[in-house]
């Protein structure tokens, strides 16, 4: 009995590791053609699905061709942008191909670069965190320390219910109500990086606030009392005792929220715009990795499919890196406390 139980729990534990590695391996295998083709330049290349002419050794006038390529690149960028703005669901690379078709398909190839969605993901997440962290902390402090219990209970339940709302609903709210509102008061379009960041922020606030409140509530009453007994005010008790005591739980909740924001698809798909342009100001529309993946899989094949998998690998590594960095940081802090 004992050994069966041991083996069962061991199997469950190994399953996690197996899943993690197999997901990564599968992503990597599918992404392999794109990785071979574009290498690390993929990360910094802003072009996505752009057809370019390639230099072949047969071409005599190399200088001229290079010029032509640059010209065409610029042209393609413009075309693509307009195309996407008009109708981002159409397969623009095909239409571009037909536009530029001159019979010599052997000399053209499609270039994929993940720079725009990577930047879009990182920026929208940063915006969301900048917006959400202070508000969530305020809510948590209020609920755990300041509010009267009669008020803290219903508000706490409301926060937990908010955390349970499916993200697509946040997306719809963002698209139809919040986006136009932001665009009216801040300017820019009603779908933009800013709107995406704010909607993401609104989405993760309840989540972060309720986790933070829970970890603040674990501060022993006697520890708070002894600070009050020293003559501390409520603010000082929160700052000097509760925050340091609950620090680990608070940072943990921030990181869970960060992970959620990085991978959020539906809410962002509604409000980020979904265009492959580098945002010059925060009110410009752009695109994020999960949105690209969700929007483009249906009409992808071959290299474009592989490029999507490459993006997925990037997202995987990004989230993984953020969370492991945070874990690592915590363990170090924990050791500092307990090793004197």
């Amino acid at each position, binding site marked *: 009995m004992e050994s069966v139980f041991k083996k069962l729990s061991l199997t469950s534990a190994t399953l996690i590791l197996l899943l993690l590695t197999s997901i990564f391996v599968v992503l990597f295998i599918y992404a392999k053609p794109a990785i071979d083709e574009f290498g690390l330049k993929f990360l910094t290349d802003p072009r996505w699905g752009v057809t370019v002419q390639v230099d072949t050794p047969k071409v005599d006038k190399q200088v001229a061709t290079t010029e032509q390529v640059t010209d065409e690149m610029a042209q393609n960028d413009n075309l693509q942008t307009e195309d996407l703005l008009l109708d981002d669901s159409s397969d623009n690379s095909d239409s571009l191909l037909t536009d530029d078709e001159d019979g010599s398909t052997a000399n053209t190839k499609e270039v994929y670069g993940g720079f725009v969605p990577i930047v879009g993901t990182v920026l929208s997440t940063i915006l969301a965190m900048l917006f959400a962290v202070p508000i969530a902390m305020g809510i948590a402090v209020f609920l755990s320390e300041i509010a009267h219990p009669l008020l803290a209970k219903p508000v706490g339940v409301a926060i937990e219910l908010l955390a349970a709302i499916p993200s697509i609903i946040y997306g719809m709210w963002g698209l139809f109500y919040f986006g136009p509102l932001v665009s009216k008061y801040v300017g820019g379009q009603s779908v933009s990086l800013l709107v995406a960041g704010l909607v993401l922020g609104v989405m993760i606030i309840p989540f972060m606030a309720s986790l933070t409140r829970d970890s603040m509530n674990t501060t022993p009453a006697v520890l708070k009392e002894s600070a009050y007994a020293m*003559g501390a005010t409520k603010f000082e008790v929160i700052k000097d*005792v509760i925050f340091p005591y609950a620090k680990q739980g608070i940072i943990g909740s921030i990181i869970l929220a960060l992970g959620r924001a990085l991978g959020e698809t539906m809410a962002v798909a509604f409000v980020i715009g979904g265009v492959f342009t580098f945002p010059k100001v925060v009110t410009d529309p752009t695109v994020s990795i999960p949105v690209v993946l969700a929007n483009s899989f249906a009409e992808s094949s071959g290299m474009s499919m592989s490029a999507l998998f490459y993006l997925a690998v990037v997202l995987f590594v990004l989230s993984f890196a953020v969370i492991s960095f945070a874990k690592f940081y915590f363990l170090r802090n924990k050791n500092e406390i307990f090793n004197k």
Partner: protein
Amino acid sequence: MKNVMEIKDFYFTYPKAPKPTLKNINLNIEENKITALIGPSGCGKSTLLRSLNRIQDLYPGNKYDGEILLKINDKMENILEYKKENKLIELRQRVGMIFQKPTPFPMSIFDNVAYGLKFAGIKSKSEIEGRVEKALQGAALWSEVKDRLKESALGMSGGQQQRLCIARAIAVEPEVLLFDEPTSALDPISTAAIEELVVELKERVSIAIVTHNMQQASRISDYTAFMYLGDLVEFGETEQIFLNPKEKQTEDYITGRFG
């Protein structure tokens, strides 16, 4: 004999409780003496102690009746009349408290002891350093920690942590110190060290101590109050209470027949 605190006709009722937890308590805390509060669990001795610095006010809805007087500049003030937070803060600086479990704050040893000083308005760095050293010496901790003041207080042993809490409380030079079963979480050696310290401290402050340990009360206190079910049954000199109790309940309790 001079009283630093006088409790007069004191009633205490917890929020929504139908009956008062403490009834008609009359008790004096004498200057530079140790007053022990003993009694079985639930008799209200901790509640009484926690009323003396109004720490129970952190949980709203308590009802106080009667008077608790504290001597401030040779005048008796009723601390139950304090309403504003700054008055309560002032009160808690005059009446310090040590809890059942050591409660070091998550900061360095030095910062723990200096914590109350900044609320007392002491800003000069050299004065803070002097007061911290004096407090740690007063708590018989200086020689053990003087080389690791910058280290986290959470790395100390339980007995050291409790002495740190005492150092932290005496750093602000209070008039009264309240001990709420300060040794209940400690081993016998640490307990002996704390007891010795409490006896030394009465040179400088007046002390009220709640204890479950009757030997402890008889060893260290000058006066003892026996409480039972919210009533103060008997109050007198420790020797008299333990050797020659007037009330039968007191006698039964200290001889171990109940409680």
